[in-house]
């Protein structure tokens, strides 16, 4: 354990405090402003609400279609996460534990996705999806998100699966397990922390994404939460109160999700699969 001198501690805590403020203030402002009227926001943007009201929440909910946005985002992010976890874990299991020609190539190929953002390829992606009639479709978005999140997930899961001793899968093989049973009964239970990280990170990624829905979704009934709240960004005027409110509503689920799973999340980040 590293120990710090008294002054060192003061310095570190001061820096941490400044950093925390920098991160928290915009959040707190957003939340506090979502309970204010437009007038209040213009006059006292940094104060707490003088006359807190839930009016904004009701207005934003109705005008932006937050409920429908939640539902669409939940469907899309939920399905994407399921797809990501299934595909990446199978893929990572195969390239981690099986010897076959091209296994190194496959790994490197999937890692290329980490180097190049998918947005670079937006035109080919668009043409591709248009050809199979998946523009303006939730399924289209789900497919894109699965593809976009695979590189990171494979990278993480492969590292964890590499840590599962080969003897365990060999013992399971002798015990009579087929590859699928080894995956299901031995590998998956041992890499649970990694699976929860992959799930949370990709859920948040998908939930927060604005770019792909903006390009692919024209139909308001299919709008994701990020697309839904964007209606308050006007060309000439911004409706700050509703904007803040809807943003608060948009990020609330991911924050709640993180609070619930933070313990697993941190455990997963700091430990290997097997000690």
């Amino acid at each position, binding site marked *: 354990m590293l120990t710090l001198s008294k002054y060192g501690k003061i310095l570190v805590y001061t820096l941490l405090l400044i950093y925390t403020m920098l991160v928290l203030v915009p959040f707190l402002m957003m939340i506090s402003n979502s309970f204010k009227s437009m007038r209040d926001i213009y006059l006292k943007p940094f104060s707490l609400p003088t006359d807190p009201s839930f009016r904004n929440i009701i207005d934003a909910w109705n005008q932006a279609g937050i409920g429908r946005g939640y539902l669409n985002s939940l469907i899309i992010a939920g399905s994407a996460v399921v797809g990501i976890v299934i595909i990446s874990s199978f893929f990572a299991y195969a390239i981690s534990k099986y010897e076959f020609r091209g296994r190194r190539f496959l790994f490197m190929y999937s890692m290329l996705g980490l180097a190049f953002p998918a947005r670079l390829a937006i035109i080919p992606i668009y043409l591709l999806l248009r050809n199979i009639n998946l523009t303006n479709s939730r399924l289209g978005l789900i497919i894109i998100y699965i593809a976009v999140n695979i590189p990171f997930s494979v990278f993480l899961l492969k590292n964890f699966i590499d840590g599962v*001793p080969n*003897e*365990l899968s060999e*013992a399971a*093989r*002798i*015990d009579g*397990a087929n590859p699928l049973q080894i995956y299901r009964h031995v590998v998956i*239970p*041992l890499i649970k922390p990694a699976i929860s990280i992959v799930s949370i990170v990709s859920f948040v990624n998908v939930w927060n994404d604005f770019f792909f829905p903006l390009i692919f979704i024209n139909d308001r009934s299919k709008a994701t939460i990020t697309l839904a709240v964007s209606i308050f960004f006007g060309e000439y005027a911004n409706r700050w109160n509703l904007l803040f409110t809807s943003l608060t509503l948009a990020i609330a689920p991911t924050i709640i999700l993180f609070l619930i799973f933070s313990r697993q999340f941190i455990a997963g980040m700091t430990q290997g699969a097997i000690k």
Partner: protein
Amino acid sequence: MAEVILKDVVKVYPNGFKAVHGANLEVEDKEFVVLLGPSGCGKTTTLRMIAGLEEITEGTVSIGGRVVNDVEPKDRDIAMVFQNYALYPHMTVYENMAFGLKLRKVPKPEIDKRVKEAANILGIEGLLDRKPKQLSGGQRQRVAVGRAIVRNPKVFLFDEPLSNLDAKLRTQMRAELKRLHKNLQATIIYVTHDQVEAMTMADKIVIMKDGVIQQIGDPYSVYFEPVNKFVAGFIGTPSMNFIGAKVSKEGEKLWIHKDSMKLLIPERYYERLAPYVGKEVVFGVRPENIYDKMFAVTPSEEFVAEGKVDVVEPLGSETLIHATIAGDDIVAKVDPKTRAQAGDTIDLVFDMNMVHVFDKETEENVLMGLHSAEEEPKVE
């Protein structure tokens, strides 16, 4: 019947490394066979080929009369115990032992019965609800053995199962495994680099080096009749002393000769050694066949060599003397009442009926077959 037969088994790894060169081995039903050798000698690879975890490049492996080259490990009717136990960390002891049966769709009451029986045999009934993490090394080892027992396989394969245990526990588990073998009446193939384990447990020892089987035999024959210098040096602690010497002839008598050391060779070896007269050989003698002259029964000058004592190690039941004879370091296991001290020069008596002579080039035992285990070792 569960005999295991290896016929000309070869293993070449994809990188071209030849781990096993044409192994031939017959393991009889209910036999306890130990594959013994230094690390990298191919013993584990051989075991893994029998288990089906490693593909067989050439040759055949058959278990119970059936060639199993292309049979999945689970269908070979074997169970394996790994060096690091390989218990499933997320399952309890009970689940670990039941896993194989569950996959085979054995009915639940039957699983329960078998797991409890095995736990009873191994004395781990109280641990069934624990996770492997909560167990000591010895307990984990028992669970690993239990996982093998419940399956009731034809053949048990052990891959250095005791090497992660401390010395005391190892001695205890050794006896337990031997007892288990007797009770289960099973065929066991056991890999180890520890020659004491091999000597104490095996019905038959298979000594390997660089992927080649050197010798197959019961503990006595590999000890008393090592086929070559490698086997002679590998089996036995402290290991056999080797002295580069010459066979010389004076009149009708043959001698092992090096500088000041000159030892008379018993007549029954003359025929074998005739071709070596005047040539360099490697003279081998085990520490326990060298005596302090003071305690030898009938010391004759023809069997005595002078040694300069370097170190004396009293072990209680015996004393090890590290000495130099004619420039070669040797170890003698002598009577604990010896008065030899470091720096002394003492007379050491060689039991010439128990010595070995190895060809310098081929390292083969020239006197092979002349030291049957039944013969009383005697001091002249």
